[in-house]
């Protein structure tokens, strides 16, 4: 989706504001929400791509105005309701619906250290042949899907060089919509900054973008 989340190359967003000695969480609710989001993902009713996509669906004027964890709140709420884990009525009342069964949490405290230590790899150990090889010239496809994609707008139609094949990974465009993992190779593709931005860029500067097979065509 060509949404405001796809920010690469915009120029009117103001100065970068670095905060000295920044805390991990600025308010305790941010930490609680971070942990709730991690815990709810353990129900496996959605995946990370779906979670990212849900946040991208926040209307643009709100997306730009919300703080980071406000977007997390909105995305989590929408996904929980969609997945049927909570209802809108429960969100509004703050109380479980009458007669709803009490479940056992998917993520208990004893499971936190292994979850943190092992993570949730997006690589897949299945044989899929690569469509491109290191050193090959490629063009990022000019696609404009209305769903989720990790092909940024600023790279579409641009020519680069495959630098390295990182192996086989879940494809976010299909995974975010629960249409299957469609595993395929991911490459680091090197783009000259001038290819992306024209003569205002320095001739030697580059941008490396991770690209799935489905984002590329031979050039």
């Amino acid at each position, binding site marked *: 989706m060509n949404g405001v989340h796809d*920010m*690469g190359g*915009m120029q009117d*967003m103001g*100065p*970068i*504001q670095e*905060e*000295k000695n*920044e805390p*991990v*969480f600025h308010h305790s*609710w941010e930490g609680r929400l*971070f*942990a709730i989001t991690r*815990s*709810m993902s353990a*129900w496996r009713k959605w995946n990370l791509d779906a979670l990212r996509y849900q946040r991208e669906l926040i209307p643009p004027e709100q997306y730009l*105005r*919300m*703080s980071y*964890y*406000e977007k997390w709140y*909105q995305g989590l709420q929408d996904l929980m309701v969609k997945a049927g*884990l*909570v209802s809108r009525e*429960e*969100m*509004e*009342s*703050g*109380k*479980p619906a009458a007669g709803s069964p*009490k*479940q056992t*949490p*998917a*993520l*208990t*405290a004893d499971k*936190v250290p292994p979850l*943190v230590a092992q*993570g949730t*790899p*997006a*690589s897949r150990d299945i044989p899929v042949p690569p469509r491109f090889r290191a050193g090959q010239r490629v063009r990022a496809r000019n696609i404009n899907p209305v769903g989720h994609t990790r092909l940024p707008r*600023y790279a579409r139609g641009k020519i680069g060089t495959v630098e390295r094949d*990182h192996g086989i990974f879940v494809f976010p465009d299909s995974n975010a919509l629960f249409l299957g993992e469609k595993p395929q190779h991911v490459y*680091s593709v090197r783009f000259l*900054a001038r290819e*992306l*931005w024209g003569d205002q860029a*320095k001739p030697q*500067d*580059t*941008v*490396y*973008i*991770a*690209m799935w097979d489905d984002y590329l065509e031979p050039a």
Partner: protein
Amino acid sequence: MRSTRRDFLATAASAAGAAAAGDLPVSAKEHERGHDHPHQAVPSDMALRVKSLESLLVEKGLVDRAALDALIDTYEHKIGPRNGAHVVARAWVDPAYKQRLLTDANEAIAELGFGGQQGEHMLVVENTPQVHNMVVCTLCSCYPWPVLGLPPVWYKSAPYRSRSVIDPRGVLREFGLDLPEDVEVRVWDSTAELRYLVLPERPAGTEGLTEDGLAALVTRDAMIGVAKVLPRRRGDGA
């Protein structure tokens, strides 16, 4: 600021549909805090909404409070940029380790006991006198948690996400880093599940330092690639 906050509250309240919390007034204290943190436009009712959400989910048996506490403790106290600093310092003193780090970052980082969530697929990129690497996620906030912890607000903000790819040298100047004209700036956009750690240059004049002494010099910003490592530690912990 005043009208922005009011507009925001109105929009957020209707969007979230949290009728119970939406009408709460902004306290004077919260208002003042808003002025102290202009980039953190936090409505006063978020604390109440999240509290309400947590108690709902606990009552339904969907989350475990002890698990929430453990997750928060992990990222507030156990996992942060000191992990990455140890990786960098080891690479500076041990050429064989550095080679492993650049060819198979996951394995090399795991040797020091780090890895896992949001660092499942690591790539380490080396700064040299000719090449300066910096990392961004233009699409959201991807960041190597096991070695750097959770990202700072500026990394997740629109100004950094938007401008890093089109004007990296301007962004670096905002961080106080003015690179020579002939250096190649490489920007890594974290569009996939690969997570990047910049291996900064070891500063001159640090030959006598121990590995721990070196690690103490390595800043988070240097490992994102928006700063260099200085031979002496500056005052702040950034």
